[in-house]
């Protein structure tokens, strides 16, 4: 941890109790600039309003203090028409301003959540009190995430126990990691360096120790780093091995005797269900289908698939999902 601390200090260029901190920590992702711009605009607006109100209070307090000799005349005893106009004005004006802010922030938010099609997937499993991450090639990391500069990355996250939250302040992004389902977070890093990774949702005793760092590298360095890792099979390869060894292929391969839907290119496809509903298949759908096959049966197939609940762990399911995703790279990155 001491080297970690030293690294933080080195990268931030600050010593303990160094008063030369910057008010806004530097942003390091594509959306950080937008978020900062919106934040500063809001700060100016809100600060301006606060200053105007404070000034008025101070000026009125001084000018109309009890012993001041000042004109206090022309006070209407009831609500005059002018007063009502004033009330309406200061009701409608803030409302319009607020709606404007809403539009701006919503626009930003939608842009931030949109994931480019070529985003690099990284699977994240959170548990008390660590982050386990896995690149598509199968290279695993704990409490560290290496990403290439300038390339969109999409985190597919789930938790093994309680709710955690993946928070990288330099990216101005945060997403809760919820047990029992996948949540996603996408970003494009725009600065080289190392950045804090925090767990932002209280998760028990060592919540404040659930730290990590995000390392942004040049794409070439990243490729080298990826290749230099322990030589494990890629996540999708591992998924394919599971797909074979656990018997998925026995039914889902096109030529098999049991009639089961083909999984090739499944993710991103619209699936029509027996009960008339339809949905776009995503990681959660695959996950549900592995664990709770009878929940969403595809139209035209018998509900014969057994549940794999308790037989596959979270990381194995992630591998199978990665494999299925790899069969449909063309449609990757929807949602």
């Amino acid at each position, binding site marked *: 941890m001491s080297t970690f601390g030293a690294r933080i200090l080195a990268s931030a260029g600050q010593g303990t109790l160094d008063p030369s901190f910057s008010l806004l920590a530097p942003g390091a992702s594509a959306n950080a600039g937008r978020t900062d711009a919106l934040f500063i605009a809001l700060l100016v607006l809100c600060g301006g309003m606060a200053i105007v109100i404070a000034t008025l209070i101070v000026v009125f307090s001084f000018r109309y203090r009890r012993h001041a000799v000042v004109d206090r005349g022309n006070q209407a005893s009831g609500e005059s028409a002018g007063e009502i106009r004033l009330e309406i004005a200061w009701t409608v004006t803030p409302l319009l301003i607020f709606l404007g802010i809403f539009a701006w922030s919503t626009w930003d938010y939608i842009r931030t959540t949109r994931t480019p099609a070529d985003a690099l997937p990284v699977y994240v499993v959170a548990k008390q009190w660590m982050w386990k991450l896995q690149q598509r090639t199968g290279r695993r990391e704990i409490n560290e995430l290496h990403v290439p500069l300038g390339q969109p990355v999409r985190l597919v996250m789930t938790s093994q126990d309680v709710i955690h939250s993946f928070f990288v302040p330099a990216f101005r992004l945060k997403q809760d990691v919820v047990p029992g389902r996948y949540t996603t977070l996408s970003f494009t890093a725009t600065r080289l360096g190392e950045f804090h990774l925090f767990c932002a949702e209280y998760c028990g005793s060592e919540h404040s120790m659930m730290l990590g760092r995000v390392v942004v590298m040049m794409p070439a360095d990243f490729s080298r780093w990826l290749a230099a890792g322990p030589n494990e099979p890629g996540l999708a390869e591992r998924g394919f091995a599971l797909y074979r060894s656990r018997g998925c292929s026995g039914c889902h391969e096109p030529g098999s005797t049991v009639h089961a839907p083909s999984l090739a290119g499944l993710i991103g496809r619209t699936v029509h269900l027996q*009960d008339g509903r339809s949905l776009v298949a995503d990681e959660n759908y695959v996950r549900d289908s592995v664990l*709770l096959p*009878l*929940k969403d049966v595809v139209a035209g197939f018998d509900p014969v698939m057994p549940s794999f609940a308790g037989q596959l762990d979270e990381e194995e399911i992630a591998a199978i999902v990665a494999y299925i995703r790899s069969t449909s790279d063309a449609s990757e990155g929807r949602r």
Partner: protein
Amino acid sequence: MTARTAPLADAARTPRHAETALRMETAELGMWVFIATEILFFGGLFFAYLYGRTHWPEGFAAAGRRTDVVLGTLNTAVLLTSSFAVALAVAAAEHDRRRWVARLLWLTAALGVVFLVIKGTEYRHEWSEHLFPGPGFALAATAGAELFFVLYFLTTGLHALHLTIGIVLMGAFAAGTEHASGWAHPPRLQVAALYWHFVDVVWIFLYPLLYLIVRHS
């Protein structure tokens, strides 16, 4: 709601309080506000039910078939009749038929007890059929079925608790009316009856949601 006691001892100095009509309005409004609270209290459970029903329709259907529709319907009839009885009691009290008031209130309380006995019988059947959530739950293979029974026991259990309070209340008013106790006057009885009707209304919604999900096929 027996706590409606503004400083009555000094009624002469507070003419506003002396008016029965106003006291009546105070107590009645208090009870309705209390009912609003209760709507939200049971509402939380209905909300959880709505979540379960929309997310696990098959599980809820499978579990819903296992409830005892005969006893459930019988119980609905019992409770509706008890509401009728207490409404009659209020009407009788308004028209000064004290003997009828007491009889009808005893009948109401008795119907409440019948309801609880039938409900207990149902619980016993469900226990023997392993429908209590927990280890050895009969429908463990069907996702969502257990959630249904969790909500089934929570809602019916809370309802039974409310009903038990109602039975005590009705019994007290019946006895109070028989002994011509001053506190068991008609306006107060009417307010107590509101509570009983509310407990009935909760059951009116529980009946289709718990017993009548899918009975065909």
